[in-house]
């Protein structure tokens, strides 16, 4: 009977430990910065204002001041956590950068029209008549000359050597007409000029220029035996930066595409007209096309890969965090063990358990915070705006830069604090539970 009761008690202790452990971690990971600041303020007030607070602070001070004596093992906590945070922030920044690049592309009031069923522009083919029919729909804005603001575009892929590796990679080549520029107000020519209609001239996006060889102003590249001159560079801080633009009427024949296009982008009077526009398409039996707002189209393209990268980052981060937790546990147990006599003396002269627990916890969390700051700083200094590229859904390189945002740095710090909390709690509890007499006898 009593055995069963003690079993129950053990189970209860384990359960409550779990709750004590998980609740603050959950709180830490979801907490916003102001909540944590408020907690910090409360802690500071408690440390300064109450007797137990004073005791905690003085015990913690001893712990902190003796860190130089066990520099090596304290460094383990700092470096271990810095590693976790750096890797976590860097990988998440990669996903965030890719997502941001594609999500910034497009607007709600411009619509991209592709052949029914096509997942990306590369898969789509529209004949000349379809392109005309779509641009004549009433929802499409007309400019001062009462021409529809519609841009039939031809997306193709060219294989060119990459600067970094010298290996051929795919660059997206977009054949456009005059309306294309008006439909992308964000896009601006940063050097050189636009291509002249009718000539074999190209303008290169900032990203494409950085990743591919032979994209400097005035240099020529060969496509199917013909030379094209790069006459300008443009920048729009989104997915278009990875593209190279040329005149649709010249690009089409080179690729034996004739007058067909891959997509038509149109501007609507208002974003709300999309449904009416779709209905107009559906009611015309000659049109077998799908319409999407350009924002939705580009967001969809980022969904799969950025989700994959996020999962990867969190998995790798979690496994590393587990390793770091055990490292911190080892260190703090050792730290508590070396201070056994000191802590026992404190308890003997009247210090209570809570200050002892909190001071050890405080010390670990401060070490963890230092590690988190170092890790986040490393990730930020190495990877912020680091440019990379990957294969996008048009089978061509999408250039993007890592985005180490304050939110990500904050996430990294929260992970650091959570690791510090777990790594410090158990050693702290052991320090407080230690029988005073045994501790004093310890050598």
């Amino acid at each position: 009977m009593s055995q069963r009761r003690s079993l129950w008690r053990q189970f209860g202790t384990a359960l409550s430990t779990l709750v004590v452990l998980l609740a603050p971690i959950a709180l830490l990971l979801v907490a916003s910065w102001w909540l944590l600041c408020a907690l910090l303020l409360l802690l500071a007030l408690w440390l300064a204002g109450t007797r137990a607070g004073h005791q905690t602070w003085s015990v913690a001070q001893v712990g902190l001041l003796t860190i130089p004596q066990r520099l090596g093992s304290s460094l383990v906590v700092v470096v271990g956590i810095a590693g976790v945070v750096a890797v976590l922030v860097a990988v998440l920044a990669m996903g965030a950068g890719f997502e941001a690049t594609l999500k910034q592309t497009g607007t709600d009031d411009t619509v991209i029209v592709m052949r029914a069923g096509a997942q990306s522009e590369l898969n789509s083919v529209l004949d000349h008549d379809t392109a005309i029919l779509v641009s004549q729909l009433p929802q499409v804005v007309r400019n001062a000359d009462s021409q529809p603001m519609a841009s039939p575009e031809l997306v193709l892929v060219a294989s060119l050597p990459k600067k970094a590796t010298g290996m051929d990679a795919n660059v997206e080549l977009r054949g456009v007409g005059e309306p294309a520029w008006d439909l992308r107000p964000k896009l601006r020519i940063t050097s050189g000029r636009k291509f002249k209609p009718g000539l074999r001239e190209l303008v290169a996006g900032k990203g494409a220029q950085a990743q591919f060889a032979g994209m400097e102003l005035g240099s020529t590249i060969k496509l199917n035996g013909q030379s094209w001159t790069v006459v300008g560079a443009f920048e729009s801080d989104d997915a278009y930066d990875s593209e190279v633009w040329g005149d649709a009427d010249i690009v089409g024949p080179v690729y034996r595409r004739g007058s067909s296009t891959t997509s038509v982008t149109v501007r609507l009077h208002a974003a709300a007209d999309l449904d009416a526009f779709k209905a107009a398409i559906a009611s015309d039996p000659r049109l077998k096309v799908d319409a999407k707002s350009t924002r939705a189209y580009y967001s969809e393209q980022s969904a799969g890969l950025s989700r994959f990268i996020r999962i990867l980052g969190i998995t790798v981060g979690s496994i590393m965090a587990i390793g770091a937790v055990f490292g911190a546990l080892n260190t703090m147990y050792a730290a508590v063990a070396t201070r056994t006599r000191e802590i026992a003396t404190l308890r003997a002269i009247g210090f209570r358990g809570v200050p002892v627990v909190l001071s050890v916890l405080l010390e670990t969390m401060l070490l963890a915070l230092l590690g988190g700051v170092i890790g986040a700083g490393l990730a930020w200094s190495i990877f912020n705006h680091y440019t990379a590229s990957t294969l996008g859904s048009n089978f061509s390189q999408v250039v993007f830069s890592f985005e180490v945002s304050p939110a990500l740095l904050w996430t990294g710090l929260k992970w650091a604090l959570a690791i510090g909390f777990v790594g410090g709690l158990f050693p702290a509890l052991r320090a407080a539970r230690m029988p005073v007499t045994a501790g004093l006898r310890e050598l």
Partner: protein
Amino acid sequence: MKYFHLIWAALLRRKTRTAFTLLSVLAAFLLFGLLDSVRSAFANAGAGVAGVDRLVTVSKISFTLSLPKSLLARIEALPGVSKVTYANWFGGIYQDPKNFFANEAVAQNFLDLYPELQLSTAERQAFRDTRTGALVGEKLAKRFNWKLGDKIPLQATIFPQKSGSNTWTFDLVGIFHEIDPKQVDRENVMVFNWDYFDEARAFGNGNVGWYITRVTDRNAAGQVAQAVDALSENSDHETKTQTEQAFNANLVSQFADVGLIVAAIMGAVFFTLILLTGNTMAQAVRERIPELAVLKTIGFSNRGVLGLLLVESVLLIVLGGAIGLLLAGIAVSTLKANVGASLPLSPVGGEIWLRGLGLMVLIGLIVGALPARRGMRLRIVDALAGR
């Protein structure tokens, strides 16, 4: 070996510390196993001995562009060419875009060039006889629970039918098996008859996506590739011919430099690990200095003590690392079974284990070196006196 119990006792001296160290080592090597599995999956996509005698010919401008079918006869006539086949990417969707798998239209002699894809004679005959017939790999069939005789509808993303319909329905007539276990991901492919595809598609008829050429002598593959490209030089459909291996490697490298990312992460992990276990070992040795002095007093040589300490640290890392790799293997196989066979993970097999064990021993030696040297150099008198 006779001192094994001595080393074991040293490890068990502080059970919690050893356990925590083991767990950190375990975490590090679990990560190593998973990441190396991803890396090998990407690396193997471009490797495999099977692909070296096959050449892939695609349009020089970009492999998304098609080539005229008239090239077929001209390539076949080249010296050093044993067989030529052609195919076209279809890019159809089964039910939902999330169910992605490769599907392509292939010529009748496709299987002759891919002897590593095994198919029974009856199914081979059925593929030949059924116009709308399709073959899928074992893994793919398992994934969607397809059985012979099933009708598989695919939504076209590129090629609508002449009738205007976007749905193509194929009859499953055969399930093939890849014999090279490293290349099992080839079983995630569906192929169907070229003739049905070419007659029914709305545009592009008569053009092919790419040619696969098998050369008679793999050492002459380079010359044959040049000869194939020479056929279309200065025409409006210039080609680029590479070995299948090089083609795949190039395609994979376009996704990302996976090797670099993995190396960077593992660098951070192992750096931390060395620091962490190094500190633990140093602690363990510091605590035991009087004991080590006793060992020396009763006749252990300096080298003996060095060896004992080194073996102890290697044993610690190998123990944790082996459990970590074991867990990584389990994780990879459960992920593949439950999430999807198309995940870029290769099974944690011999090579990964070999690399992992090498790393474990290396890290064990690095970590043990300093503490072991300290143990070796200590002077008995000072150590016993606690100086």
